[in-house]
């Protein structure tokens, strides 16, 4: 009895018995690619879509990209990106399309030009000022500690 149960369990683990395979056979003339996998061109398109979607802000979520947002609008915007890339638009043209519709706001990283430069320059300036303050303080401390000790 135990042997029979063990045999059944082994058969179940071994998967479908040859000849009883399911009907998931490629139809004649169809691609032999397994279902759910993508051709290289599809993967390239998906990679480009993902990269662009990661750069664009979701209009209905605070601070999320449309790649990360689960909202329906973000999903539809990703479809727009994919369709435009498939139609032959360059990533720059797709990006420009969204800027035309939503303004510069849609870009998660503002372009480094005009007033936007403030966003890039202020942190650099803050680091430089901080560095200067630290350097001056360290210099003062070391100058203080290296002064000759006076004897009694």
């Amino acid at each position, binding site marked *: 009895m135990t042997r029979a149960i063990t045999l059944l369990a082994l058969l179940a683990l071994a998967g479908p018995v040859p000849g009883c395979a399911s009907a998931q056979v490629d139809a004649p003339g169809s691609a032999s690619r397994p279902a759910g996998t993508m051709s290289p061109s599809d993967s390239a398109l998906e990679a480009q879509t993902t990269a662009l979607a990661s750069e664009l802000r979701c*209009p*209905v979520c*605070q601070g999320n990209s449309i790649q990360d947002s689960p909202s*329906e*609008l973000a999903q*539809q*915007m990703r*479809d*727009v990106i994919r369709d435009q890339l498939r139609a032959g638009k360059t990533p720059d043209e797709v990006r420009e399309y969204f*800027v*035309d*519709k*939503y*303004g510069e*706001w849609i870009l998660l990283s503002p372009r480094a030009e005009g007033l936007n430069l403030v966003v890039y320059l202020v942190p650099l300036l803050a680091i430089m*000022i901080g560095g200067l303050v630290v350097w001056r303080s360290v210099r003062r401390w070391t100058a203080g500690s290296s002064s000759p000790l006076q004897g009694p």
Partner: protein
Amino acid sequence: MNWRRAVIATGLLLPVIGLLAFGLTRDPKAIDSPLPGKPAPDFSLSVFAPGEGTLAMSIGDTVKLAEHRGGIVVLNFWASWCLACRDEHLDLSKAARAYHDRGVRFYGLLYNDQESSGRKWIEDMGGQAYPSLLDPRTRTAIDYGLYGVPETFFVTSDGRVAYKHIGPISERQLAQKLDSLLRESPGTQ
């Protein structure tokens, strides 16, 4: 040298405080639309809710924005799940009737919603004076830079976006904007 330190600290802090104060005056959720002044994105959409009386169209008719040159068009994006859309519904219908003879055409555009839910909502609300259109895959909404509903766009007789109104719009606001647009283009019909 304390006064020097105070001057430097103030000089550094003031711009930061100014920037934060400016930030407080702005609504982080409000997105300034770049569309006003630009050509209104064209569309060709089908009617799913016919409208009423002389404003009515047939279900399945196609509305093309390009065919409305010479007249002012009001586009209202709405959805049955949008609570704020209830507030403006009656006012939009009233304005659509009032301005129809002056060549103004109103269209509703269903946003992220089922056609059946849209129809039922109109029925529950006691009707809608003007036709409503389906926007498959929200393509027209994205073309108009939409990020929520309700949003209302005013398109001039030469096909430019004149204004974008975010949130529910009142009869008074509609009248103000339409009167101003009609004054700017008196030949509109």
